[in-house]
């Protein structure tokens, strides 16, 4: 059969070769991101006011018992939980953004831009300022529980709108912006009536800060991420198919509605838990997936890990920057991600590169 503009001499047998080449390239990208993340972690551990070099950091990591006690305390008790928290939260936010962009078929979707972070922040502030919990018997998880419930409510509102007939991707993003404004206004009201101590705690949210990271908080985030990722992995073909359009995905037997709802719940869980522990950190969930999409494509077998790794590396590097701007001062990472994220995002959307959304 004649073909659609086949180049002269195009080899038959190419598809399998083309696929193997692609897979090699995508594996190399994932490996490269792992290496970048490892380097960034080391850099994060070496940066800080105590002035420890790579040699001392490695000595503590490889042989904690034999290391100098002061260095051990600085590395293991202060820097390591923060550095690991940056990685885990970065991965959580980026995976949340990647799957939101996938299920809503919208490049602007992320927990931050769609108001999920703002909702979680308001929920948390409600618990901090007024002691109001929406989950009964939440106990020590009052703040996290509130953040999760409000994040879920915002996510479900967006999901309901996205399903309305005639709702365009722009409508969904506009609703997200409306949610950001509404929750920020409500948050401001809470701040206005808060006590000084509560206000300080609420400000922690709005700035996004890794400083409160400890092994317990890290463990919660790791458990949630470790619980969510395998669920996504059960339907990677289906998630990839969603990007072909609903009609096409349905024709391949993908349960589109169920998969969307399931992904949305998981994404809300990731975003809510991350925000509940480190506050509002923007742009990681937006920029991380875009970097992954450009580098590793949208086959979710590669896109999902690449998104997690790029988000983790981004926040980890941000953590280094936050410590390096003014010696002895650690800036809240939320400020840095916004400052660095905006130009990166502008470069991504204005740069001369292929568009992947219709």
């Amino acid at each position, binding site marked *: *059969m*004649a*073909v*659609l503009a*086949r*180049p002269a001499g*195009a080899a*038959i*047998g*190419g*598809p*399998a070769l*083309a*696929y193997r*080449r*692609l*897979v090699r390239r995508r594996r190399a990208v994932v490996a490269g991101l792992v290496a970048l993340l490892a380097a960034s972690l080391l850099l994060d551990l070496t940066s800080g006011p105590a002035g420890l070099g790579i040699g001392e950091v490695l000595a503590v990591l490889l042989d904690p018992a034999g290391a100098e006690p002061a260095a051990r305390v600085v590395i293991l008790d202060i820097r390591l939980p923060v550095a690991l928290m940056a990685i885990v939260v970065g991965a959580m936010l980026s995976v949340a953004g990647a799957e939101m962009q996938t299920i809503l*078929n919208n490049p602007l979707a992320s927990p931050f831009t769609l108001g999920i972070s703002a909702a979680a922040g308001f929920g948390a502030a409600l618990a901090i300022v007024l002691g109001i919990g929406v989950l009964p018997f939440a106990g020590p998880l009052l703040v996290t529980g509130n953040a999760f419930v409000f994040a879920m409510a915002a996510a479900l509102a967006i999901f309901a709108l996205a399903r309305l007939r005639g709702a365009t991707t722009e409508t969904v993003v506009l609703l997200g912006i409306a949610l950001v404004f509404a929750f920020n206004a409500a948050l401001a009201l809470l701040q206005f009536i808060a006590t000084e101590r509560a206000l300080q705690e609420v400000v922690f949210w709005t700035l996004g800060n890794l400083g409160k990271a400890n092994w317990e908080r890290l463990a919660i985030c790791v458990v949630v991420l470790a619980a969510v990722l395998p669920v996504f*992995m059960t339907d*990677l*073909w*289906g998630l*990839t*198919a969603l*990007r*072909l*359009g609903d*009609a*096409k995905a*349905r*024709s*391949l*037997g*993908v*349960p589109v509605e169920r998969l969307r709802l399931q992904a949305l719940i998981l994404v809300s869980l990731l975003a809510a838990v991350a925000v509940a522990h480190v506050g509002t950190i923007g742009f990681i969930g937006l920029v991380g997936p875009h970097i992954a*999409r*450009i580098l590793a*494509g*949208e*086959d979710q*077998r590669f896109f999902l890990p690449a998104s997690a790794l790029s988000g983790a590396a981004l926040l980890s590097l941000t953590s280094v920057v936050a410590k390096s701007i003014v010696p002895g001062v650690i800036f809240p990472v939320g400020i840095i991600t916004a400052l660095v994220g905006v130009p990166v995002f502008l470069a991504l959307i204005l740069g001369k590169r*292929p*568009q*992947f*959304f*219709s």
Partner: protein
Amino acid sequence: MTLEVGGITLAYGRTRVLHGIDLPPLAAGTVTALVGPNAAGKSSLLRAIAGQMRFAGTARLGGMDLAALGRRLASRRVAYLPQELPGRANLSVVEAILLAAKQDESLRVSEADLALVEGVLVDLGIAHLAGRGLNELSGGQAQMVSLAQALVRRPEVLLLDEPTSALDLRHQLEVLAHVGRVTQAHGTIVLAALHDLNLAARFADLVLVLREGRLHSAGTPAEVLTPAMLSEVYGVEAEVFRTADGGLVVQPLRPLPRRKPKTGPFAVERAA
């Protein structure tokens, strides 16, 4: 193996678009063309049979109710090619087709999977597009990829909604000839909505004419594609010629004065 479709009624909100459609049994190894003017219900009927929409009535394959099979199993036996082309995701053509083949299967891609994908791409003459991104394809190329995604699932029933709408003349003929060969080789049941009556005359064993959500007529191309049908269903004065090789050529001449519709989607719109 036959596909039996009976009593299909379907509505969008309060607007009913299919009114209890019964089709003659569609046999294995045959191509059936579904023709009719815009808004006759062709796409809706295909979507109903494909299980993409809720409807009243039955669609049975080999005596088995497709709705009872569940979406995943039914989608393996019945492939549906929607009019919408695959989006602009950052996927290469070979990945997009592999994705269709591997849906609901393990994440590991075997040599057999790659051979299957390669076979379909080579058969359709688009092997050279394998490494190209979906966002780099022309409309015609995207339509070929979409068809490859349906064929790679080796379905028993192939439902095609305007499979040649974005293709030039040559590729229209080639794609339908290929579908015909697949139909013969695998005993596939093909039901294709087509706007081009000459393509329907040339490639279909059976032609079904829909009008305002009802089956108007059914039969071989020679039985159905007549000046009288064209006048009544399309509102067009036309001539139908027989060619030397026994084929049919429909030659539309001019539109007839519009008659006021009594029922159907257009009537509803006007009343509103």
